[in-house]
């Protein structure tokens, strides 16, 4: 209830309610005082908003009508709530077939225009005040019924309800004991919200002449009577119109805020001051003539910094792996390399592709020299477009090809990645997971890229498909000299395919080493990672070594070494001073280098 709209709504509702209480007392007499000498007048000092056909003051009538208008809306809401909740709860009591039938009826009723339903219900109930109230009540029932049904269906899947059913509790008892109490709050809030709609609906019916009849009067009736006069004295309509607007909008705003409060979304992170993070020194420059060179890359979101001073290089034709648990910043590093960090992320440091800053490259240069492959191939292909044209657009947009030759190139690239060319006419959902990922890779190959950034390219696929997709990447690398940056949480994937591995932990690179030297890693974290992977000669009977504890969240990375809380070798130095990255490792107390175990293959 802190938003502006909620506050405005509350103020309007408060005014309305006060008027509803005091209105008839203060203005009630004046509102019905006949004055045959001053009928049908416009604005005057005695009657600001003019008079009606009985010479009665329009302003007084408007204010005095508040009580009846609000009261009728309240009654209609009550009727709607009783009908709606009963109808919506009915499927919970009936068997499955009955439940389905009632649900279908509810869904059908919801589609009927509310006002029409109200009109015809009013016709049956007899026009006049009763008819209007019943009509609006009936008309608001389907919406509430559907809400009740949705909420109840949600609760009915809950464990405790299933447990109660299992114990033989009857449906009715489950409904009253378990379901209704649990959905009461959102239901009550929604019923409150529908008060506003009831008020407006009643005003509409009365305006049409289907509601309140003289001598009684509500706002809608005042509008009905004043409408023909609007051509002469537009001000006579201002009172009731304004009153309906104030009350209707007030109730609706409050109702919406209540509904939002019932389903409170998590508060987005505020833009707090950016924490001043010391950048890790990375003295090691990338290989000269590097294809990709990343220096002191830092990515921050508000006060949170998931990537902290990352530096590395990729030589032409080299395959480099980045390994780390989720939350280590490896995926954001990949996005930063692609220049795709979403707002409000801030990227500092530099990313050079072929020696030129990423930002200085044109769209077409970037679109053709750099290819990206993401984790989920289903999500990465546009479900609404056929595969071929999706690939071909790189050709028409960046390479200046005609549609036809772009499509031919797309088919060629698909076949190159092992997708039958005929599948170019398929929609993404008609391909298997492995095929889709091949298509994504083929899409990247449309422009003869120098570097493929692949972020968890096989995680969403099953084991055999995984291997084939990795084989494909290796084959492309071997055949075209395309460099690759392969990002994965799976150290076995990375070590088998990459010449060099970067190990990330809590936003930093903690070790960089040739993949055949992983067994003799020096950083305690790398060692632990390696130990947690089963090898051919691991005794399957023994549990795998797991690393106790958890990686710190990007928002609370400690001052010293981030691994210290989980590290067996940690000393007091580790918790206070950040270990510098020197000769391939960032650790105060690295392991001794072991002789390489080159023959080990996993």
């Amino acid at each position, binding site marked *: 209830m802190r938003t502006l709209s909620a506050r405005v709504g509350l103020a309007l509702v408060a005014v309305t309610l006060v008027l509803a209480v005091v209105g008839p007392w203060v203005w009630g007499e004046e509102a019905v005082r006949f004055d045959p000498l001053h009928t049908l007048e416009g604005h005057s000092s005695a009657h600001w908003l003019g008079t009606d056909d009985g010479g009665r003051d329009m302003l007084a009538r408007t204010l005095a009508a508040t009580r009846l208008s609000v009261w009728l809306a309240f009654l209609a809401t009550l009727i709607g709530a009783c009908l709606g909740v009963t109808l919506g709860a009915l499927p919970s009591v009936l068997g499955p077939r009955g439940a389905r039938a009632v649900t279908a009826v509810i869904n059908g009723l919801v589609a009927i*225009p509310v006002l029409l339903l109200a009109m015809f219900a009013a016709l*049956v109930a007899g026009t006049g005040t009763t008819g209007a109230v019943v009509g609006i009540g009936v008309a608001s029932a389907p919406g509430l019924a559907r809400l009740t049904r949705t909420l109840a269906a949600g609760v009915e899947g809950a464990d405790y309800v299933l447990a109660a059913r299992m114990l033989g509790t009857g449906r009715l008892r489950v409904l009253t004991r378990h379901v209704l109490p649990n959905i009461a709050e959102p239901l009550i809030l929604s019923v409150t919200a529908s008060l506003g709609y009831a008020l407006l609906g009643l005003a509409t019916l009365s305006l*049409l002449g289907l509601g309140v009849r003289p001598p009684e009067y509500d706002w809608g009736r005042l509008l009905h009577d004043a409408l023909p006069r609007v*051509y002469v004295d537009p001000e006579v309509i201002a009172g009731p119109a304004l009153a309906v607007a104030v009350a209707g909008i007030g109730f609706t705003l409050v109702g919406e805020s209540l509904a939002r409060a019932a389903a409170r979304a998590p508060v987005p992170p505020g833009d707090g001051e950016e924490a001043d993070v010391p950048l890790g020194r990375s003295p090691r420059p990338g290989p000269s003539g590097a294809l990709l060179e990343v220096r002191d890359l830092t990515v921050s979101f508000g006060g949170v910094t998931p990537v902290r001073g990352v530096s590395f290089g990729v030589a032409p034709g080299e395959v480099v792996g980045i390994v780390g648990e989720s939350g280590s910043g490896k995926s954001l590093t990949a996005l930063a390399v692609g220049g795709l960090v979403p*707002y409000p992320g801030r990227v500092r440091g530099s990313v050079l592709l072929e020696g030129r800053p990423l930002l200085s490259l044109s769209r077409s240069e970037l679109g053709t020299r750099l290819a990206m492959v993401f984790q989920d191939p289903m999500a990465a292909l*546009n479900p609404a477009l056929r595969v071929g044209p999706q690939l071909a657009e790189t050709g028409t947009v960046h390479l200046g090809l005609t549609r036809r030759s772009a499509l031919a190139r797309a088919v060629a690239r698909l076949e190159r990645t092992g997708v039958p060319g005929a599948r170019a006419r398929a929609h993404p959902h008609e391909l298997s997971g492995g095929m889709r990922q091949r298509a994504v890779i083929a899409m990247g190959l449309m422009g003869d890229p120098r570097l493929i950034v692949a972020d968890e390219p096989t995680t969403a696929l099953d084991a055999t498909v995984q291997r084939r997709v990795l084989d494909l990447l290796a084959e492309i690398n071997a055949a075209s000299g395309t460099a690759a940056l392969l990002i994965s949480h799976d150290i076995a994937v990375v070590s088998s395919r990459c010449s060099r591995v970067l190990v990330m932990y809590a936003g930093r690179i903690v070790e960089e080493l040739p993949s055949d030297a992983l067994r003799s890693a020096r950083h305690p974290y790398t060692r632990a990672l390696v130990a947690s992977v089963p090898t051919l000669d691991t005794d399957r009977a023994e549990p795998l070594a797991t690393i106790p504890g958890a990686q710190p969240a990007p928002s609370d990375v400690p001052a010293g070494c981030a691994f210290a809380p989980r590290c067996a070798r940690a000393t007091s130095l580790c918790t206070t001073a950040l270990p510098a990255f020197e000769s391939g490792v960032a650790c105060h107390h690295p392991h001794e280098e072991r002789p390489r175990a080159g023959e080990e293959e996993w």
Partner: protein
Amino acid sequence: MSRGRRAGRFVLSLGGVVVASFAMLHLIPGDPVRAALGPTAPREAVERRRAELGLDRPLLDQFLAYVGGVFRGDLGESFLSRRPAAEIVADRLPATVQLVVATMLLALAVAVPLGMWVAARTENGRGRRTDLAFTTTTGALSVIPEFLLAVGMVAVLGVTLGWLPVAGKDGAASFVMPVLALAAGPTALLARLVRVETLRELGSDYVRLARAKRLPTHRVYFRHLLPNTLTATLTTGGLLLCSLLGGSVVIEYVFQWPGLGGATVDAIVNKDYALAQAAVLVYGTVSLTVLLAVDVALGLLDPRSALRSRG
């Protein structure tokens, strides 16, 4: 949903509408003919009228006769004017359809680009001011009832400024105020929906990949994103179109538009039950047809839902 089930449900719902329109007359407490003719009408007149309408026959006979009439396009005779109800409907319906279709086209034409534009401006919480302006404006428009907008426009644009005709249907200018008043709310709701849908799709991988391919922005939005937001837009659009039928009744009343809504209000006020029955039938059929059309369109547009229906 398979084609057969969709057709079955449509026919079933139509049956529901026919039954409801028939039942309406019989649910009215007391004697509808007495109510229509007034308490002063002589007894014989009421009896004669009852016999004429067949109300003295068994219920099942009446129902079968009614259904037969509906199939022959005979919707009974107005109690009041004694004209065939079908003729009145045929006279009045086109004006209502014109009003509603014009409104829907306007709402779509404004809401879709607007929603996408605002989504692009406010992606990931940027553009706070655009966000606030959009949320406030659409919020206000969606809670102000159409009849207040209509009355306000008549008072200001029509009477005080004299820019536009205040009533009746006579040329393009007469469409302006009714269409604007009717379109404001649906446009606001639709624009909000399009924005939410666009924002969701903007976060998806295929948009990321499209951006990684460095496609021009317009291509990302119109070729990649738009088709994927259509499903939700059309579904809601269909429901809004149905609710426009309701809203049109008030708008027709305020602007004295010669449509079916005005005739329906008159029928209800005057207890002209036969005409009211015809109105229920027509409005119900039109709503159902709109929903079916949206369903079919979705099936044609979205390859996934087509697959689902086959599987």
